[in-house]
């Protein structure tokens, strides 16, 4: 599920969050209120006599309608009163954000707070370069509530060389595990009354559309479609590893129990099974003949009722379901998460996928942490930052966040792209996410989920750079045709794929990966 998916899911995840305040409803209905603010009264706590400005670097495009400034002004009233400081939001726009993000950290500019993500913002790499401040001493004193609320095992995930360098977003539910989305109404017509739980079920469903829905492409798969990662998740216990091998994942960990043992799914029978199935799907005409060059947007086709299947993660599903209910009434969009087949293989999102660090050159780390503690633990400030002003940006109706009467996006739209410490307890579910997601999918996931175990593992690819590039080339060259069943005889195609991987230096990378995982295991003390 890494590689192309990893990248795509990161990009999409990021995108999913751009114009939104919160993608998913919190899993805790009950809200804790009446939290006391941190003890920062003058005299009793830290010295806040000097007024300071605290910058917070976030990723995203700066909102242009002036609403953000108004909301921030409200926030700053609190900030001024409580800690004699003012927050400044600094935006790193999406245009070449990686370069700008890393430059900002490398330049030695005084950054107070900054969004981090170990899996997509190279946080460990930046930590290695000394970009972040060590927070061990500062946290208990200046962010006491945050310090107390995060359990020790989560702090463990936040350390680099034994020092805490980041505050994880550990208390926020996000599910970005992938699956197929299918239309409940058509599935019923096809005789699939139970929720689909395997690929054979999907096959039946697609075949029904092919036979009975003229004008609909069962699945208008576009070039770049990649489902191999999902197949692994459905039919094995193997875990994806944070290593990119281009189009297809070719290394996985054996299972959750043997999470430090590398294995090769493409050299196992499951890959032949997969290739055969995809060939069959292609031959049945489940997707276009020219799917490999198809640039259509399948999701748009689904919304238009012209495609019957989509493939993405739970968060996307949650919003898409609501949208589909509007656009295709009665479609009853369903999700078949790949983990459902065996009911064993599901890891949570890394708790350091989002988080906040203090820049190494910050001039006011104390006040920065105090500000952070307020954002994360003061419900009023939290809602302001994440949702805007109540009555202007949102209203709460029946426990759900809706847009007030007369709300115009251009005028009142608001987002802050704060992904550095959202917490479920303050979240108000949006009316735009499916209201049954919790009792259906989340409940299903909660039964089988396992914590993410590679949060601190960073594959150092320097020793095998050339081989990795070669492997990526092979997966990019032969992968797409196998995935879309256009590679001719599946067994032969798989054989050729394996040969080329071997030639590209597959075994060397495997050995190196195993070596580094062994080291990681020792580092974790397991």
């Amino acid at each position: 599920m890494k590689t192309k998916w990893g990248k795509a899911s990161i990009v999409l995840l990021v995108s999913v969050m751009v114009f939104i305040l919160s993608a998913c409803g919190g899993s805790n209905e009950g809200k804790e209120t009446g939290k006391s603010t941190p003890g920062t009264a003058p005299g009793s706590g830290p010295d806040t006599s000097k007024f300071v400005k605290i910058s917070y670097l976030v990723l995203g495009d700066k909102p242009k309608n002036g609403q953000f400034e108004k909301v921030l002004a409200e926030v700053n009233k609190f900030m001024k009163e409580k800690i004699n400081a003012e927050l400044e939001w600094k935006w790193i726009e999406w245009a070449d954000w990686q370069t700008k993000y890393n430059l900002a950290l490398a330049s030695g500019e005084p950054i107070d707070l900054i969004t981090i993500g170990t899996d997509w913002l190279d946080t460990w790499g930046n930590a290695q370069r000394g970009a972040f401040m060590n927070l061990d001493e500062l946290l208990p004193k200046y962010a006491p509530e945050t310090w107390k609320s995060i359990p020790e095992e989560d702090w463990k995930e936040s350390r680099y060389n034994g020092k805490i360098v980041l505050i994880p977003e550990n208390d926020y539910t996000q599910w970005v595990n992938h699956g197929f989305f299918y239309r409940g109404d058509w599935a019923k017509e096809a005789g699939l009354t139970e929720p689909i739980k395997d690929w054979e079920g999907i096959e039946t469903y697609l075949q029904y559309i092919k036979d009975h829905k003229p004008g609909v492409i069962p699945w208008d798969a576009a070039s770049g479609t990649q489902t191999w990662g999902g197949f692994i998740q459905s039919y094995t216990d193997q875990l994806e590893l944070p290593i990119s091998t281009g189009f297809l994942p070719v290394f996985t960990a054996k299972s959750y129990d043997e999470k430090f043992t590398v294995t090769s799914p493409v050299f196992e029978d499951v890959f032949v099974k997969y290739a055969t199935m995809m060939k069959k799907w292609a031959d049945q005409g489940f997707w276009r003949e020219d799917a490999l060059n198809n640039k259509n947007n399948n999701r748009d086709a689904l919304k238009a009722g012209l495609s019957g299947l989509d493939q993405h993660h739970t968060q996307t599903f949650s919003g898409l379901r609501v949208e589909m209910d509007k656009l295709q009434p009665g479609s009853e969009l369903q999700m078949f998460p790949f983990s459902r087949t065996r009911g064993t293989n599901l890891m949570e999102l890394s708790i350091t996928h989002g988080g906040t660090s203090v820049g190494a050159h910050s001039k006011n780390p104390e006040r920065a942490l105090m500000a952070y503690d307020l954002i994360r633990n003061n419900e009023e400030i939290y809602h302001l930052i994440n949702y805007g002003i109540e009555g202007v940006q949102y209203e709460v109706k029946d426990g759900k966040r809706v847009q007030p009467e007369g709300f115009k996006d251009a005028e009142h739209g608001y987002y802050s792209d704060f992904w550095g410490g959202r917490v479920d307890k303050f979240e108000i579910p949006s009316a735009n996410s499916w209201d049954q997601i919790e009792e259906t999918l989340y409940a299903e996931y909660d039964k089988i989920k396992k914590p993410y175990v590679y949060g601190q593992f960073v594959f150092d690819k320097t020793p095998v750079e050339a081989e990795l590039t070669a492997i990526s080339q092979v997966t990019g060259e032969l992968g797409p045709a196998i995935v879309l069943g256009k590679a001719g005889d599946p067994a032969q195609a798989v054989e050729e794929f394996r040969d080329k991987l071997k030639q590209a230096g597959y075994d060397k990378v495997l050995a190196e990966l195993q070596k580094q995982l062994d080291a990681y295991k020792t580092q974790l003390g397991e």
Partner: protein
Amino acid sequence: MDDLIETRSVRTDFSGILVKIVGYVFIGLFSLCCLLPFLLVLGTSFTSEDAIKRFGFNFWPREFSAFSYKIVFENPDLIIGSYLVTMGITVVGTAVGLFLVAMTGYALQRPDFEYRNKISFFIYFTTLFTGGLVPFYLLVTQYLHLKDNYLAVLLPGLISPFLIIMMKSFVRSIPHAITESAKIDGAGDFTIFIKLILPMTTPALATIGLFIALGYWNEWYNSMLFLSPDMKYRPLQLFLYNVITSADFVRNSAAASNVELRDVPLESMKMATAIVATGPVILFYPFVQRYFIKGITVGAVKG
């Protein structure tokens, strides 16, 4: 030149006509190759997104729609501002850059300038490697303190070794005798440069000016690095790039967002931005073109 034209007019026989026919046909085809894609872009930019999805790109919009322009010009104030910024930077940058390049080029080829070769080599030498992105960024932001300053975009584009070398070799075609004769008449170096050299180098100036102007017009990378969103008006290319990237995100995020859903016409919008971005540049060419032909040095030195 005169000789050439005469021989042509004399030999208007069959082969001459053939050459002309072939020439016209070839140039005609070539212009078509340049023009058609542009027309396709223009046509697509006015097509509704829906029609693009169904029929693909067309020269003539099947379903006319100016919606993408509406989105691009959603904030007319911002786009006009960025137009002005880009124009300002382009005009100032081209004028100053041209002046500097021309002066350097002229000085570097004067035979009575003793260290010309050493300095030329020094300038050429810098083209072989770069300092890298991080040092460049540090220099501009930490030492020159030009973050959020238009100078950060203006300065790096002013002078380029390539253009200096080009200028130098062009000025070399002006005989040094001209400089010497002006000297004898009592002109100072600067007067010679302004009054004699510059007028004689107009073709080169036009070419180099065009290079510099296009460079500034299309510039977005430095703006992206150094001009943060805290600046209200930023160069056009960056502005348009952001329009596209954010549209991309709106589309992808629409599914799960709180944002009012609207169908962002991404394909036609890309085309509309391309038109908006290239439009004025097209006007540059005919304007500058006449200078290519004018101001030829032939005849400057008689005998």
